[in-house]
Structure formats: C-alpha cells, structure tokens
C-alpha cells in the first residue's frame, strides 16, 4: 500500500542549468504549457458520475474555454475520467482503454467510489482502489461531485501539468509489475491486454527497476504473443532452388 506522494517519480525533464539547456528548458516549458492548455477528455462513461460531465461541457460551465474537448477514441484522448463505481467487468475495459491511450495521459478518479470503494465498499463486484490498477493523477471526491468541483479538479490537473508534476503515466511503465500483480490478483493469471506494455516501455526507454517482475513473468507464460507484422520483403532469392518449398 503505497501512498500517492512517496511514489519515486524519476523525471528526465528537469536537466540542470546552463545555456544549452536554457533553450531546452524554454522548449519544455512551452510543451508543458500547451499540454496543460489543450486536454482531450475521453468520452467514456464508466459509471454513474459521468452524468456530471455534460453540464460541465455545455453552456453553463463550458469546459472548452479551458481548452478541454471530448474525444471519442482512446487514441485521441489525454484524460481518462473514471466516474462512479468501478465494477470488475468495467475495470477490464478501463485498463484496455487506458493502455490504448497515447501518453502523456492522465487519469482522474471522479466520485468517492474510485477513491476507496465509496458506498459500494462491501460489494464483491466492485474494485475499491483505482490506484492499484492504474496510476491516478487526481481524485475528485463526492458522490457525484457537482460540475464546479469537476472543473476545479481539472484546473488543479492543468496546474500540475503546467508545473510538470503530473508524470504518473511513467509510473505505469516503471512499476508495471506492481500494477499487473494487482490486476492478476483480481482477474486471474491468464489476464492479457492486446497492448504490449513491456514492448512499449523498451521502445520509448521508459523501463524502470520494477517494470519486470514475477507477475510479468507469469504474463509471459500465459500470453498469446501479438507481435506486429513487420513489412517483409520475403523475396524468393535468385535463382529459385528446386528444393525450396513452394
């Protein structure tokens, strides 16, 4: 049980001073500013709290003035709003959607059910702590927080992004074994999503000390490998040998 604050977040983006880095620094500041000013929210209502989002988007509260737009597919989205109770069936889809999103991505747990189970804390069918399965950036408590609270939370997240503190998405790659362990504990050993998280961690060199572990080893055993089809020029070499299988 790790508390939010003491998760060791190793961030590359804060290089030490010096002129060369000044430019890099300014560039990173600009990137962080644009990331904070343009957030695409995934249009995925996981639970009952989602009913508070339309009023936050439409004319009364208008999220667009903060630069937040609803987007339909996880590929296009930055924020995954997990609203309301997280049933085990929905949690599978939430994890799949989270892994399909492009990082830097952020998760906001709206409603108390994502914090600690909420009023469904006794239920055998709901996951209690969203933080076990996904790195969560921001919690907005309330048994459906009003749109003002939702927007306040989003503003808080925008501030964190601008300051560059909201890098929890790296944690999913760095401590994938911890998250996978929790997921396997709930869904069983042969739980697998089509996204190759370990491959992605290696590709974008986001590997941390705890990325691989016993749970990822378990995953390797049960996993049906999904290697992407590389474009191969499997040409029959010249001249065609008789014994070559046709």
């Amino acid at each position, binding site marked *: 049980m790790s508390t939010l604050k003491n998760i060791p977040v190793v961030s590359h983006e804060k290089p030490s001073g010096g002129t060369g880095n000044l430019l890099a620094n300014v560039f990173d500041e600009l990137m962080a500013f644009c990331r904070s000013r343009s957030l695409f929210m995934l249009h995925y209502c996981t639970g009952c709290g989602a009913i508070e989002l339309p009023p936050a988007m439409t004319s009364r509260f208008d999220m667009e003035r903060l630069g937040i737009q609803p987007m339909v597919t996880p590929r296009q989205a930055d924020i995954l709003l997990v609203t309301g109770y997280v049933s085990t069936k929905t949690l599978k889809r939430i994890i*799949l959607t989270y892994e399909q999103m492009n990082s830097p991505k952020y998760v906001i747990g709206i409603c108390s059910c994502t914090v600690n189970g909420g009023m469904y804390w006794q239920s055998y069918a709901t996951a209690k702590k969203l933080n076990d399965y996904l790195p969560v950036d921001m919690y907005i408590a309330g048994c459906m927080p009003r749109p003002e609270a939702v927007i306040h939370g989003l503003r808080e997240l925008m501030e964190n992004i601008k300051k560059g503190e909201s890098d929890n998405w790296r944690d999913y790659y760095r401590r994938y074994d911890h998250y996978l362990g929790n997921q396997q504990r709930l869904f069983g050993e042969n739980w697998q999503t*089509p*996204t*190759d998280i370990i491959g992605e961690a290696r590709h974008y060199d986001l590997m941390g000390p705890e990325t691989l572990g016993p749970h990822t080893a378990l995953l390797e055993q049960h996993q049906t490998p*999904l290697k992407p*089809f590389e*474009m*191969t020029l499997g040409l*029959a070499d010249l001249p065609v040998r008789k014994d070559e299988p046709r």
Partner: protein
Amino acid sequence: MTSLDLLLILSGLTTLAGFAFGNHRAYPWLAGIVLTAQIVILASMPLPMAAGFGFEMFGHPVGWQMDGFGRFFALITLGAALASVAYTGGEWGERYAAGGKNLRWLHGALAGNVLAMLLLLASGDLIAFFIGWELTSWAGFLLMAQGGERALRAAMRYVPYAMAGAMAVLGGLVLSLTWTGTLDLSQLVMLVPGLANWKLALLLALFGTGFAIKMGLLPVHLWQTPAYAEAPGAATAFLGAISSRMGLFGFGLLLVKLITLTRLADLSFIDGLFSARDLIEWVAALTIVLPTFTALKQNDARYLLAWHGIGQSGYMLLGLVIGDATGSAGGLLHVFNHATYQAALVLSVFAVMHRTGTADLNSMGGLVTRMPLTFLVMLLGIIGLAGLPPMNGFVSKWLIYRSLMIEGRPLLFLMTVLGTLGTILSVYKLIHNTFLGQLRAEHEQIREAPWSMLVPMLALVALAFVTGVAPGLALNYVNEAQAALGLPVMAHTLGGVESPRGSLDMLWIVGVLFAGFGIGALLFYGAGGRSKRIHQLDNYAGGHFLSADVRYQYSDHFYAGLMHRIGPLYRGSFTQMEAALASANDLLASLMQAWYRQAVPALTLLIATVLGLAWMIWR
C-alpha cells in the same frame, strides 16, 4: 526486304517458336529479345513504310503499309506483349505448366496475337485490313479459350459476337467497293466523303458495329468482361491493355480518315439536332459511366479490372470523336496510358493470386505487410486508372476534359467526371480489400511475388510514372498519329500543354507535389515523437477485446450508402437484351431448320402452289 517485312517475319518466327517450344526455359528470353528488337526497328522506321510483299485478289492489289497511326498502336502492342511474355516466362509459367495446362499453346497464341495485330495495323487497303481483322479475332479467341472451363465458355460466348462483327465489316467492305470502285485506303480517303448521306450512314452502321463489338462499346460489351477476366495470367494483361483497342484503331480509320468528322456531323437523324457524331459521343460517354459503376459492385478483382477496361475505352473514343487538337491527343494518349497501368494492375492481381490462390476480394486483406512491392505496383496502377497526378492517366484525362471545356459540352464533361469519380471509388475498394485492412491468419506466411513477375510489373508502372511526369515523351508519337489521321496536331512541351487559355505542366505539378510530401514527411518524422508499430488486434473496438477469429473485413456492399441510392438502377437491362437477342436467334434457327428439314412437306407444297397461283393471277 523493307524493315516492315523484317518486323512481320520476326513476329511470324516468334509465333512458330512459341508453338514449337514455348515451354522451354529459354523461350521467354528469346521472345523478349525479339520483341525488343521489333520495338527498336519500329521506333526507328521512317514513315510511311510500305511492305515488300503483296498480292493480287479479284484484280485488286493487297499490300501493307505502316503509317504514324498504325505505328502508335503497334508500339503499344509490342510493349504489352513484351511485358506479358516476361511475366508468363517466369515462375508463373512453371506453375501454369505444372498445373497440367499447355504453356506452348499460350506462348504461341500470345505471339500469334502480336502477328495478327501487326498485320491489321499495317494494312494498306481494306482487304489487308479484313485479313488482319479476322486474324486478330481468331487469335484473341485462341488466347481467351486457354484459361480453363469457365474461360472456354466465355470464349464461346465471344465467337458469335466476333463473327457478327466480321460479317458487318465484310458487308461494309463490299459496299465501299461497289460504291467507290476501289479498295485502296489512300484513294478511299478521297472518294468516300463524296458519297451520299444514306450511303455514309450505312457504311458507318456496318463498320461501326464490327468495331464496336471488338472494342466493347455499350450495347455489345457483355462478352468482354468474362472473356478477359477468365483468360490465364499475362494473357488477361495483354488482352486488357491492347486487344480491344484494335476496335478503336478501326474507328479512327473509319470516322476520322474515311468518313471525316465534318461529314459525320452532317448525318443527322433529327434534322440537324442530333447527328451521328453526337450519337457516337453519347455512346462513348455512357460506356464511360455504366461499366465503371458496374465495376463498383464486383467482388472479384479480375472482373472489376475487366469492367474498368471497357469503361476507359469510352474515354478514348470520346476524345477521338471530339476531334479538336487537345481532345484527340487526349484520346490517343489515353490508349497508351491505359495500356501501361491496366497491364500493371492485372499483373499485380495475378501476382496476388499466385501467392494466395484467390482473387475474391471477400477472402483477402492486409497483404501489404507480406507483398509490399506488389502493393506499390497496384497503388501506382490505381492512381493511374483513377486519373490522378502524378500518374499518366491524369494527363490524358485532363486533355479530354480540357477539350470538352473548350468545345463547350457540359453534359459530356459531367459524364466523364462521373466516370472518374466512380473509378476512384471502385479502385479504393480493390486495394482496400486486397492489401489493406485485416490480414487473415492463413495469409500470414505468404511471401512477396517472385522477381520474374515483379520486374515486368515495376517496369510498366515506372513507364506510367515517367510518362506521367513528362507526358511530352508519349505525346511525340501521339502527334505522329494525329498527323497520319489528318487531325489538327497539338503543340506540346515536355511537361504537358502550353496555352494561354489554360496550360498544364506536369513537371512542376509533380515536383511541387513531391516537395509537399517531403515537407509533410519532415513535419511528421521531425516534429512528431517516436511511434511504435502495433499488432492489428491492438485496435479500438469500443472496449471490446478483439480476437483473430473475428472477421470484419468484407467487400460485399462496401459502399452501402451509395448502393441504397443507386442500387435500384442496376437492372441488368443489357443482359436481358442479349438474352432476348439470343432467343430470337434460336427461334429463327429452329424455323429455318423445320423448313429445311421438310418437317411438314405437305405444308410447303401448299404454300408453293398458292404463291404460284397468286403470281399467275397478279401478272
């Protein structure tokens, strides 16, 4: 022994060699060398070149003579044959022979087709023309009939069409002989325009039917799709590229040289409102649109391309009949352009068939990762077929559009653009269901097509791209053909057309296009971060976990929205018309048979006596 004789003798020898030892490994190299030699001879031949040999028939001299118009078509024929021989000679031919089929007959038929077409294209007078015409029909039949049982049925369906066409041409020949007294083309050119209107109309009707059948114009086009689609491999490419253009050669000779477009405009049905020229233009325009939208519904790649072959011939005839410099240049250039990318497309479809064993668009998909070069060939081919820059198809279509604009024919212009848009829709369906989308489990292990098939395809597509970027190269020969036909010659630069009212410079357009792609690539790879390749099952499906056994790639009803709107228009009226024609023939034949066989002798005796009495009384 003039160079034209040499040309004809060489192709005669290749035909014999083809029949004799076509299945030998060395034959394709030999045939390739001879064909290249023929192309060089033909290209360097000073025009007009008369052939050495000739003979007398019913007192009329029969001789062969190659001019600019014939040479343009002959060059395309030889080029298409070269690509087909190279394609058939390689691994495709080995598997064809291993499959129990006769490779010697295929090579022989291919070379025989070339010989027949050269004879037709170099004909100096109507008899030589008819000999060439018959040979081409029969050689075409021989080539079509070798593809197996379905191909034989399609070829047999072609025979009545071909014979009807031949009889019509023969009728035209006899009539023109009786009216003008000569069969020599150079004299006919002076005499025929002087004939009366009804005579010209009859000549147009007879010759026109024959050429329309060979070219597959609208009412008589049904035989061409199954015949061309079911023919074996490279034969389809050869047939689709050039064989039906012999009909256009005939139309060029007839409409522009003999009857001349001005006299054509005088033959009016409704006193000056709707002339024969308008009729031909509208038949060509309908031939552009209707087959293209039939191709849209096909689910077999070969049939889709065969239907497009018919559609594109409409462009050529329309360009030719408009007759102004840009229009005819566009029509003739389209013959060359279509030959290049149609052959490349058909060869790429057969390369896919060589590997996956099927051409059915419903059972393929995602092959781009397995056959990238074949994908490149089909991609450039469909860009050419759809008539988009940077390929050559765009230049010839632009010329036709430009002439329609200058001549002020809005409805014809609309039909041509409708044809182009229909082509874009159907070719996307072709490449989407063959190369893009979901790769099937059973196709994960297939390999790229062998080099012997790739080299001719890539050469054809490269030729199409080069003549697209610098259309001037092909326009030289087109100008020669225009001069030979007596049409106004279009001034052109290497890049395209230079004129104050609207010029086209493909060098600049393609240059800017690729510069734009360069900047796009720079923006994409430079500005954007790194991207990772992912598996096809790692896809957004509304939170659903995809699995390999779920098939979601189909070609049926691909354009559902469009079909909701224009679906009811597909009533198969031409098929019904053909069936009606066929049953009328059957009825006639059975009547004749009954009369001939004296099934009811008493009845005939009675009729004879009654007629005799009536004649007695009347006289």
